[in-house]
């Protein structure tokens, strides 16, 4: 079995073969697949539960702030972009630039937590909780589950930032950085489904 990055067809004709494994540690990818599966169950449960009480979900969705949801999408997508730029910078031996991009990603992640926290505070002040109704049971549990992933992702980003500053990563030794980066992108990917499902679609 050919495991090399290139395959030689003959003396003059060489084609690039696709890398076998995705960037980062393979174990992290299995973890990501497990996480995606759990979120898929959540999303499908929400969508099916909605079909049993469309009117309730439609009215309750009106109590959410789509501006906050859109702002959080901008923050999380921008944070993913910053992480992608950080990996590219470190790969190009620009460690200081890479560390700055990771700090920017952390700032965007912090902004996300702040906006989401303000949304929660607003709802709790109105006396809304998990037992308010089916919609809020799903909204609070689904978004808080994702919220905790953002918190974990930010801890990972902070460790990566420290590692980049210490020079732990460089071209050919990027697996740790890439593993943390793909986890953060997964958190972003999940939000890209959560945002339209909860805030936009009626």
């Amino acid at each position: 079995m050919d495991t090399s990055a290139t395959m030689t067809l003959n003396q003059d004709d060489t084609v690039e073969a696709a890398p076998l494994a995705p960037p980062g540690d393979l174990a992290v990818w299995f973890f990501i697949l497990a996480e995606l599966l759990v979120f898929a169950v959540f999303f499908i449960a929400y969508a099916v539960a909605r079909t049993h009480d469309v009117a309730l979900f439609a009215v309750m969705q009106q109590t959410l702030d789509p501006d906050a949801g859109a702002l959080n999408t901008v923050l999380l997508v921008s944070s993913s972009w910053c992480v992608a730029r950080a990996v590219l910078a470190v790969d190009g031996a620009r460690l200081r630039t890479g560390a700055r991009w990771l700090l920017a990603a952390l700032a965007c992640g912090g902004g996300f937590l702040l906006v989401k926290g303000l949304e929660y505070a607003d709802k709790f002040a109105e006396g809304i909780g998990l037992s308010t109704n089916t919609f809020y049971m799903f909204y609070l549990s689904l978004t808080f589950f994702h919220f905790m992933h953002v918190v974990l992702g930010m801890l990972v980003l902070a460790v990566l930032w420290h590692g980049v500053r210490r020079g732990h990563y460089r071209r050919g030794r990027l697996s740790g950085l890439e593993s943390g980066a793909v986890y953060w992108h997964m958190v972003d990917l999940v939000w890209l489904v959560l945002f339209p499902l909860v805030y936009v679609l009626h």
Partner: protein
Amino acid sequence: MTTRHIDLLWLFLMFATALSWWLAEASPGAGVTGVVLALAFLKGRTVALDFMGLRGVRRPWPWLVGGWLVVVLAVIAFTFLQAPAA
């Protein structure tokens, strides 16, 4: 992947997010549902292939993440089209 490429992808994601946000105010309907989910698919595909680095990686990895996105969005589309808001 170049920095310019990544920056252009971010611009696309911002544009698609702005469009979804604008559609949040639109009247519910099959057309809006379709466009919003199509935008979610394109955004998710961009993050999976370009940011997560699955573009060019051998199967099954791109298919697993892409398949997750397709299945989840298809189920959501089915339930919303079956039971639209009045």
